[in-house]
């Protein structure tokens, strides 16, 4: 990595700026960083942490990003083998609640594979072997104490092509709570269905036709139905695997807005091959390339001043 232009920067006394602007910025960029050894900056100084270059050279570690909070999910040296082929190499990353973390990278770089590790969907592939430690709230998700069926209720997933069950809209959303026993009466179930559909922004459009088939909806509506279905079991994390790639721009925009609204309640990880979408929707971005995690950091920094040459090449369209 060529460092010759980057000189040590003396910290600048922050200039107080209007609190409204900074509050908005803090909400967009996620919580501020806390640097050990420095007096804790006030909330006004969200952006004035030590600059990117000064600290760790590791591709994986952000510059003391998000210290002081526990991650919702963490992965440590996760590798995935398909038979003999190593598809994912020693990926370590943290997913935080209240944040949308985007995984970007070219096709076949392992981002979807990694996402599927987080709710153990790779278990369904016979030739796949996962090494390394993945934790949810500090608990190893492969331990016997963590049941995979419950894990998947706590870590929900939305897929690339909308795949509602060929049942009624109501049944689609009610299925999860029913099998997990989350409601004790019909009216309670009704309430869960309504709440989930409202949170997914679909209630107004379907409230009069809950008994109609889920597959009769438009593509964008189907995807929102799938999101409602995932929400209905009250997960803590929502994983999204290229949720908008099969949708038109307006439906995509609606889903992106939905993600923004959901952010406060769930930790969200989204895989996308559309960099502009990652830029719009996420606060943290991880760039994968050839099975490795090349860079991870604040979205605003990754897209204005990435630290790695490979990242720069990819996001400016010089890749390949």
């Amino acid at each position, binding site marked *: 990595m*060529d460092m*010759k*232009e*980057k000189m040590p*920067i*003396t910290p*600048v006394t922050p200039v107080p700026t209007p609190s409204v602007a900074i509050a908005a910025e803090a909400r967009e960029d996620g919580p501020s960083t806390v640097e050990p050894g420095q007096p804790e900056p006030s909330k006004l100084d969200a952006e004035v942490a030590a*600059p*990117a*270059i000064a600290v760790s050279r590791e591709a994986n570690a952000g510059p003391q990003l998000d210290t002081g909070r526990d991650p919702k999910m963490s992965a440590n040296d996760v590798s995935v083998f398909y038979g003999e082929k190593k598809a994912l190499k020693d990926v370590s990353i943290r997913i935080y609640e209240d944040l949308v973390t985007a995984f970007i990278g070219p096709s076949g770089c392992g981002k979807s594979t990694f996402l599927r590790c987080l709710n153990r969907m790779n278990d369904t592939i016979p030739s796949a072997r996962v090494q390394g430690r993945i934790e949810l709230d500090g608990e190893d998700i492969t331990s016997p104490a963590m049941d995979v069926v419950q894990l998947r209720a706590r870590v929900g997933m939305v897929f690339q092509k909308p795949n509602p069950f060929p049942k009624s809209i109501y049944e689609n959303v009610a299925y999860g709570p029913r099998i997990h026993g989350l409601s004790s009466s019909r009216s309670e179930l009704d309430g869960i269905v309504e709440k989930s559909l409202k949170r997914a922004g679909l209630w107004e459009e379907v409230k009069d036709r809950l008994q109609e088939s889920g597959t009769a909806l438009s593509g964008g509506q189907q995807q929102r139905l799938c999101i409602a279905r995932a929400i209905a079991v009250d997960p803590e994390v929502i994983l999204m695997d290229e949720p908008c790639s099969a949708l038109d721009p307006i439906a995509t925009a609606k889903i992106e807005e939905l993600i923004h609204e959901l952010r406060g309640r769930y930790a969200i990880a989204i895989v996308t091959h559309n*960099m*502009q979408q990652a*830029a719009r929707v996420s606060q943290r971005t991880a760039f994968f390339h050839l099975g490795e995690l090349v860079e991870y950091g604040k979205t605003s920094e*990754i*897209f*204005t*001043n*990435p630290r790695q*040459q490979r*990242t*720069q*090449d990819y*996001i*400016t*369209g*010089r*890749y*390949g």
Partner: protein
Amino acid sequence: MQQASGHTLKAFDEDIERLRALISQMGGLAEHAISEAMRCLVQRDTEGAAQIVQDDKKLDALEIETERRAVQLIALRAPMAGDLRDVVAALKISGVVERIGDYAKNIAKRVPLIESAGRIEPLSLLPEMARLASGMVHDVLDAFVERDAQAALSVCERDEAVDDFYDSIFRALLTHMMENPHNIGQSAHLLFVAKNLERVGDHATNIAEMVYYAATGIHMADRPGKSPRL
């Protein structure tokens, strides 16, 4: 961060190169305007000065063209990271270079106002100051073309010399005015000329900061201290 290879979309490369070429072109015009204006001042060449004033229109047109292209690039190409910083820098630099051209124009406008009576002592200092200032402009735009942050930094350091020049000329002119009230008119004009040149130096420094940021992604946090003004 180096701009390693070209974009997969070749047209993107072409767009960025055209933008940068416009900046180079503007820089050349501005430099020429400064040195020409100074020559006309020394040689009392009123026709040359009128030409400089006319030529400033070209610079204005180029600035508009640059802005148009930059906005188009942002809308159509969605540049990221280094590319985005390049485009924003080009946008800002074009405005600054246009202002530098305006300063040269102002100097040229004063040429007919300085009567050919006699040799004015402080006038001899001005060409050297102009050389310094226009040299800064030249070098900083080279740094922009090369994406060379170190070169940009060194341009910043030279501003001190220009400021020192201004201080000396100021004192010399003051003295000149005090010697003979007859001289006040002309000296005042020369004072403005010197001020314009000093501003050119400052603007070159501004450009250097933009170049630095575009090249490295970090703002040039330190600026050399300025000597106090009266």
